[in-house]
């Protein structure tokens, strides 16, 4: 497919779209986990978002998409060091990918045929400065998951094997999707995802028809369809860029910090990562909306996606985690009434 589906043309799925936009504004939020039914546009949204983002400037032959010549890893044999613009990379990590393919390995062919010790970069190198998309992340093999955790946290891929000692930057936004009916995700991995959203197929017939119609016209009259949505996508891109620029100047009042802490204590979320992510997500949201300051309304909107996967699971509580977060938020901040939401 040459042109991905336009992001603005995705019907509904507001939570998922917002979560993805927030990670685009502040990649340090740490990725999105999308859990839900098949065929609800999860992978479409990831690809659409990457296409929406402005292209990155990189050294043409750099295996890790570095922006400057000085950032290119020393093991890379650079062909040309021209600066080129490339679309934000989206790398698929398929199930059953081997460790070698993910982290990179000794280039066996070169080692055996030419006797050279060379490194063949893996998927993590290609995903640097972009998105790493894992469909069915809950079925991923454990040792690959451990690897990803390590790299996602440190932002650096260290390969020490087969006589190689190589490191390269691997900063990417991790987007995982899956269906909880087929297996749970380990709590350790769950916690590393900044935001988590649940998607459901819409039950409204009108909405469903609209989805099908847009998809049909995307497939049959691609050019006209893309043109129709270009303006909306451009507006969104501008908002995201403005959000990125405003991120550092967005103020966080002390009251917001206290609110964050109170909310996390009330929910009993493990560790401090919940608070940090909630704060980052709320700040990215404030920046996206151009509010200048993080308010309770932002916290309220960001709380479910930032906290729902960090609660201690109580198997006897029938209410889902989202409901528990929403309940606690309204208990703490009062009922849902602000106009800003």
């Amino acid at each position: 497919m040459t042109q991905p589906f336009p992001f603005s043309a995705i019907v509904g799925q507001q939570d998922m779209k917002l979560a993805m936009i927030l990670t685009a504004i502040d990649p340090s939020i740490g990725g999105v986990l999308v859990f839900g039914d098949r065929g609800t546009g999860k992978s479409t949204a990831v690809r659409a978002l990457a296409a929406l983002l402005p292209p990155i400037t990189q050294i043409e032959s750099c295996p890790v998409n570095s922006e400057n010549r000085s950032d290119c890893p020393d093991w890379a044999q650079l062909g040309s060091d021209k600066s080129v613009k490339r679309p934000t990379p989206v790398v698929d990590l398929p199930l059953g990918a081997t460790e070698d393919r993910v982290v990179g390995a000794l280039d066996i062919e070169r080692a055996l045929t030419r006797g050279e010790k060379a490194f063949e970069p893996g998927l993590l190198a290609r995903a640097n400065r972009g998105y790493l998309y894992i469909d069915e992340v809950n079925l991923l093999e454990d040792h690959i998951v451990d690897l990803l955790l390590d790299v996602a946290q440190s932002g650096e891929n260290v390969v020490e094997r087969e006589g190689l000692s190589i490191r390269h930057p691997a900063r990417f936004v991790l987007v995982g999707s899956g269906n909880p009916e087929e297996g749970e995700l380990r709590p350790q991995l769950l916690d590393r995802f900044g935001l988590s959203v649940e998607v459901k197929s819409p039950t409204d017939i009108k909405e469903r028809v609209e989805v099908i119609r847009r998809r049909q016209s995307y497939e049959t009259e691609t050019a006209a369809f893309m043109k129709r949505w270009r303006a909306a996508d451009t507006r969104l891109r501008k908002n995201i860029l403005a959000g990125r620029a405003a991120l550092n100047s967005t103020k966080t009042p002390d009251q917001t910090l206290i609110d964050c802490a109170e909310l996390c204590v009330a929910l009993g979320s493990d560790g401090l990562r919940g608070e940090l992510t909630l704060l980052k997500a709320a700040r990215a949201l404030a920046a996206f909306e151009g509010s200048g300051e993080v308010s309770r309304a932002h916290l309220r909107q960001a709380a479910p996606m930032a906290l729902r996967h960090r609660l201690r699971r109580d198997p006897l509580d029938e209410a889902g985690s989202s409901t528990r977060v929403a309940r606690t938020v309204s208990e703490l901040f009062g009922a849902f009434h602000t106009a800003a939401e």
Partner: protein
Amino acid sequence: MTDSPGIDGAWARARLIATLMAVDPVGLGGLWLRARPGPVRERFLALLSGGPLPEKTLHPGITDTQLFGGVDLAATLSAGTLTHTSGLLAKPAFLRMTMAERCTPGLAARLSRVLDAGQHCVLAIDEGAEAEERPPEALTERLGLFLHLDDMAHSGTDDAPLDHALIEIARARLARAKLDETGERALVELAAHCGIGSFRPPLIAIAAARAIGALFGRIRPLPEDIQLAAELVFAHRATAFEDPAQPAPPPLRDEGPDPEGDPDGARDIETEIPDEILAAAVASALPREVLKMLAEGRGTRRAAGSGAGATRRGNRRGRPLPSRPGKLDGHARIDLVATLRVAAPWQSVRASAAPDRTGLHIRPADIRLKVFAETSDRLLIFAVDASGSAAVARLAEAKGAIELLLSEAYARRDHVALVAFRGTAAELLLPPTRSLVQTKRRLSALPGGGGTPLASGLTTAMQVSITAQKRGMSPTLILLTDGRANIALDGSVNRDQAAGDATKIAKTLRRLGHAALVIDTGNRPQPGLQTLAATLDAPYVPLPRADAHRLSAAISSTLDG
């Protein structure tokens, strides 16, 4: 369609499917063909050949290099220059996958990505015998059509070839074919009716309607084309008519994902075909047994899926073992030192044989692969006494304990299975799974009451345990009962025989070396159960009036200690 008299209606349907696959292979995504080998299947496969796309065959064990291309190591080593191979997927193709029921989730994920790119078409030939033996859902979801051939008699088929001239005309017409908005809406609504949440089926159904219309010489598909498309695409995916024992309830929109809070929404829009008629047509499009088979197998996929009887590749790295010779297939890792060690003694001989080559002389036969001994996942099999004597409250505790253990278990990567025994027989309520969602659902449906067929319970648990062991898991049996076995294996009410049968099974379990744990939930500890525990060589834990938390704590400490 050459629908000559004397030909089975099912065969006409099969021929139509083959024809549609030739008309629009890419739009339909592919075909899930569930059929054991036999002459009927051969006839059908013969119909499928000669389509517009070149045919390629793949098998569940195919490697990434074969699929996507890569370096041909053997050729590279013998020629001394880098030689690439192109993969099966390099060009648009009609991919025939044999033994699709053994397709791994990894391969399904790769094929899904390929299918989403919209250039290929997959024919998954599924030879599964059991309902759970089937290709991963990620793949079947993307294959538009489904055909079940096992019940078809050879006499009801013919070997007349498809009309390829007609297909060519239909293909030419297809580019201009378009389904109007009413038709699109009808298909979308119908998908929702049938309990299909995903958006792929309606999109495929639209493609199918266009293909059917084109085949019958229409650019605008007619209502009957739409109906046929719905039958072909939705029937096997429908979840709303899932229980074939109960007739599909006519007021379908009271349940399933229909708009409830949307009174003025879609309902007032007239479609040319009433939904009820379409829904009924879809519901009757497949035989009941097939629907039942599909419903049973749905969602029972294993997290680390693999074919029956195969030794599973564990999912942990484990302790390294001595390396062995082998081919680099993209999964195994080369043991470089061992490879060089094998090649070393031959260097001078090989160098004199090929004096103009520099560097090391390595032949494909020198390559050694790393092998790891892998620790396997643990499976906790709960055999729960749901008889009348085990009070209803006790059952609730057992349920609670299982859920608690499961919530701990996913941190430890344990799997859980649940066998309940009551009345005259035992039932496997929950096949081995790691899904909390599924467990909750099955547990809440667990009924109580009746006799205590302890021996049946143990037998079922044993079967699960043997299967799990074959798949590379380490099973542990946890028996929760108050021990008053009163139903024998043959279903007769005979206390002595029941106890004898239970002891016999326990001995077999012990001989198989399966770990076990006996929890006595009776108010007073039962000496009979202590003996049974001794026979099983299992710890005996009396837990009168246990609550869910204590039960779970007891199990955890016994298992870990």
